[in-house]
């Protein structure tokens, strides 16, 4: 029944798009993975910065969307893939450039191939390292899956030397290995850097990260404000609207031919959030110099 409903929705979408493009074709086809707040926020940023017309398809609303066929039929000048699902669905589009937005897989694991460009979901590693140095950490523990965040950690390692920070890295291939790796880090690190690694950070292992912080009295530096309430000391949050705007700028450059199709800039605007309670518990004065 649900499948039937989704099929009906797709038919309606195609019909709608057909009707719409019959008059004038949109410049940008936004393929949105879902209707999360983060996606909407980024898309709003994109729209605010992009002057052309856009059409949006939310994948989660349909059972299956053939983006390549859709591009053929609609003939947009650019496809904006919002989210990993949308990016995956748009990878086979070759007629027009594809710009990824809020897609962690875009430039964390390895560089994408083909005509895919996009804005990274994280700021440059230096920003995190700078933050760690501000916290007084000399040894920063990182647990990650190389298949998910190998490229980004490589960049971090390269920058760490410049900041005089030793990255103590433990790799995991499965979430269940995370707690064991955390055990290995006991007494070996001054801070813990949590990357948006879906293998290392899961709902099951999340408590282990903060218990480590609690028991070892080391702060956890994370990528989202949401983890502050769970026990993280500091988060470095990207501005999603600015990400959208940054993606719009990239899209305009691509449409104007000013940029190559393989451009992956890091997020440029971030916001630092701290948990004063955690800082107090850890004996850190987060309000002073972190921000």
């Amino acid at each position, binding site marked *: 029944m649900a499948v039937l409903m989704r099929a009906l929705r797709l038919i309606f979408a195609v019909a709608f798009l057909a009707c719409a493009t019959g008059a004038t074709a949109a410049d940008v086809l936004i393929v949105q993975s879902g209707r999360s707040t983060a996606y909407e926020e980024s898309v709003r940023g994109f729209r605010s910065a992009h002057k052309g017309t856009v059409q949006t398809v939310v994948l989660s609303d349909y059972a299956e969307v053939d983006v390549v066929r859709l591009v053929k039929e609609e003939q947009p000048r650019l496809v904006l893939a919002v989210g990993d699902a949308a990016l995956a669905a748009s990878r086979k589009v070759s007629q027009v450039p594809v710009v990824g937005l809020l897609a962690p897989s875009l430039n964390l694991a390895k560089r994408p191939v083909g005509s895919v460009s996009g804005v990274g979901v994280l700021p440059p590693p230096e920003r995190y390292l700078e933050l760690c140095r501000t916290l007084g950490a000399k040894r920063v523990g990182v647990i990650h899956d190389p298949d998910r965040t190998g490229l980004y950690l490589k960049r971090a390692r390269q920058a760490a030397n410049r900041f005089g920070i030793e990255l103590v890295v433990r790799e995991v291939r499965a979430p269940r290995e995370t707690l064991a790796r955390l055990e290995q880090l006991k*007494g070996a690190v001054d801070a813990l850097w949590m990357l948006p690694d879906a293998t290392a950070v899961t709902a099951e292992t999340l*408590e282990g990260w*903060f*218990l480590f*912080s*609690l*028991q*070892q*009295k080391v702060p956890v530096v994370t990528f989202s404000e949401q983890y*502050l*309430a*769970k*026990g*993280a000391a500091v988060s470095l949050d990207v501005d999603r609207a600015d990400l959208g705007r940054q993606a719009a700028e990239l899209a305009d450059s691509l449409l104007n031919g000013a940029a190559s199709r393989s451009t992956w800039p890091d997020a440029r605007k971030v916001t630092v959030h701290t*948990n*004063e*309670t*955690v800082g107090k*518990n850890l004996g850190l004065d987060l309000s002073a110099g972190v921000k």
Partner: protein
Amino acid sequence: MTLRDRFEVIRKSFLFRIFSIFIQVATVVALLVGSLYILTEIRKDRRTSETLSRLTAVGLAKSARLPLFSGDAEELSKLAQFAVVNPAIHRAMVLDRSGRVLADARHSKISPQGNIQAISIEVRSSPSGSSPDDVLTGETARGDLPLGSVRIEYETIRLSGHIRGTILLAVAFGLLFLLLVSAAGYPVLRREMRSFDELLRGLGEIRDGDYDRRLPADSGSELGIAATNVNGLAAALKQRDGENRELQRSLECEIQAHTHSEAEARESERTLRDLMDAMPAGVAWTDLDGNIRFMNRYMIDCFGYGYGELRTIEDWFFWAHPDPDYRRSVLEARNAAAEAASKQGADVSSYEGRVTCRDGSVRHVIFNNQIRKERIVITLIDITDREAMQERFIRAQKMETLGILAGGIAHNFNNALTSVLGYIGFARMKLNDPDKAMQLLKKAEIASSAAAGIAGQLLTFARGGDPVKAPLSIAKVIRDAVSLSLGGAGVDASIEIPPGLHGVEADEGQLGQVFNNLIINAVQAMPDGGTIAIRCANVGTEKPPPQGLLPGDYVRIALSDRGCGIPEEMLEKVFEPYFTTRAGIGSGLGLASVRSIVEKHGGTVTLHSEVGKGATFTLHIPSTGTLAPGEDPPAPENLAPTAMAGGSILFLDDEALIRNLARETLEDSGYRVTTCTHGEDAIALYREAKDQGTPFSAAVLDLTIPNGLGGREVAGRILAFDPDAVLVVSSGYSNNPVMSDHRRFGFRAAVSKPYKDDALTRTLAGLLAGSTAPHH
């Protein structure tokens, strides 16, 4: 048998009691087991609750570590809310290190009712279980820091619901247990008690006399042994029963005989007591210790002391002889009498004494003490009344002797006075001029008249003669006496005559003398004046008559004065002749005459007086029981004028002086007078004169002739042969019935001696002139 009686029988049955004990034991067991079960459950519940609360606290503390670490109040609230889902937990709190409450959750459906227990657990960064190295080294975990604490409050009272359930369950199981035990135990007990019931029935039948009853004796069991013993007992009882019946028959005969003897003894004792009570003497006996064991009715009534009041003979002496000195003297007399009796070998010792009765009166008593079989029998003979009677008898004898003596003297004295007065009067008639001699003669006559009055009273007292009784109104007598005796005395009289006052049968003259004397006595007692109160009343048979009077109707006259009174010791003496407290005024014969006259009328006179308060004379005179006659006594007959008369007069008197006086005065008046000394001579002279055809015109006969026929007898003889004889009686005893009722005896007139003035001549003149002469 009512339902209640049947229930009582069941309740008292052995089966019921055994079953009750059985049930009680089962109840106690059930209670003990139930109580233990309840206590165990309560303790277990408490432990469970505490453990649960502690576990909750530990779990909360563990869960709250990270939220505390991160300050996630929302998460902490969720955790606290989750903790109070447990109904045993009343409140869950999470506090930070400074004690600030970060989360506070309460059970939404539970309000605290007291008895709150709390568990607080500190939340630290390291888990509660330290590493083996830390345990071995005794160091705390590295980097362990306090994050805060959790507090769990749980309410033990919340356990009461479960406890109630446990109790109800225990009670239900207990009742079920009792029910099952009772249901199972009763038939068993009943079956076991059947043999016992049969043994009891057999015992009951043996008890009721069925000694031939034999109980089934099961060998071996206790009941069988008991039945065997009971059978043996029944056989023995049967034998004893026969013996007892024989013994009972003999005992019944003995008891009957004993009962008969006892009844006779009781009857005898009752008779003895009745006799003792009927005895006119006091009888009492004591034991040898002096405890009074019996007092007869006479003793109680006479002396007024009850049997219960006097316990010992000492009590008797104390009350009967209140004066210690007199008591001592009585005891000495008693001891002396006892010693004397002992010396003489006599059983009875006697002595006299005065006993003070309960009412204060004193009785003269003779005590007789006699020792009989360990008891002292005391006989008291009251001789008070006998002594009084003896005194009265002696007094009466004395008075009689005195009366005879006084009578003789008075008679002679009166005769002499008769002559003196007669001659004085005769001489006065001869003296026509009121010269000096005439005055002296008058004085002599007055003095002689006074002497004659005294002689008259003496005669009245001495002999008085029988009163000439006639029904009369005593009120009239009293009024006459008052008007006669109170003239010019300065004393008033208050007379109370109730309507319906009975008349009396009395001699009016003597009764008048009684009241004259009493009133004169009262006047003399009140020289400064006053009021004499005289109250009359009927005294009927319904009231007991005063002492000394026979039962009957009386008129009581109480005459009271407010004079100086009479001392108690003189109360009896005032009635004795010649006793007077007013020498020179009274003759001493007034009150003696009063008593003499009243007693001759069948009455009494008593005197009550207190010094300074006056005196009251109370007279009781037999009444007729009817109203007094209303007519007055006949008016006095007119005196005939004295005139010269003719005729022959026979004059009888034993006194020569009087005969001579009569001869001279009568002859002086023209009569022919023949005198004689003896009655027989008078009769002979009268008969002779009549036979000769010259009968006497009249005959004056002295009533009293010593040693011979008196006037009354002489008159009777003369009237026998001359019914028309004119006879005049003459006597110094003016109150003699013949004098007062002379007509009944055939006399035409009566003349009292001494003759006043010309009384005799005037009387004779009146008779011989054809008119009836008055008596005087």
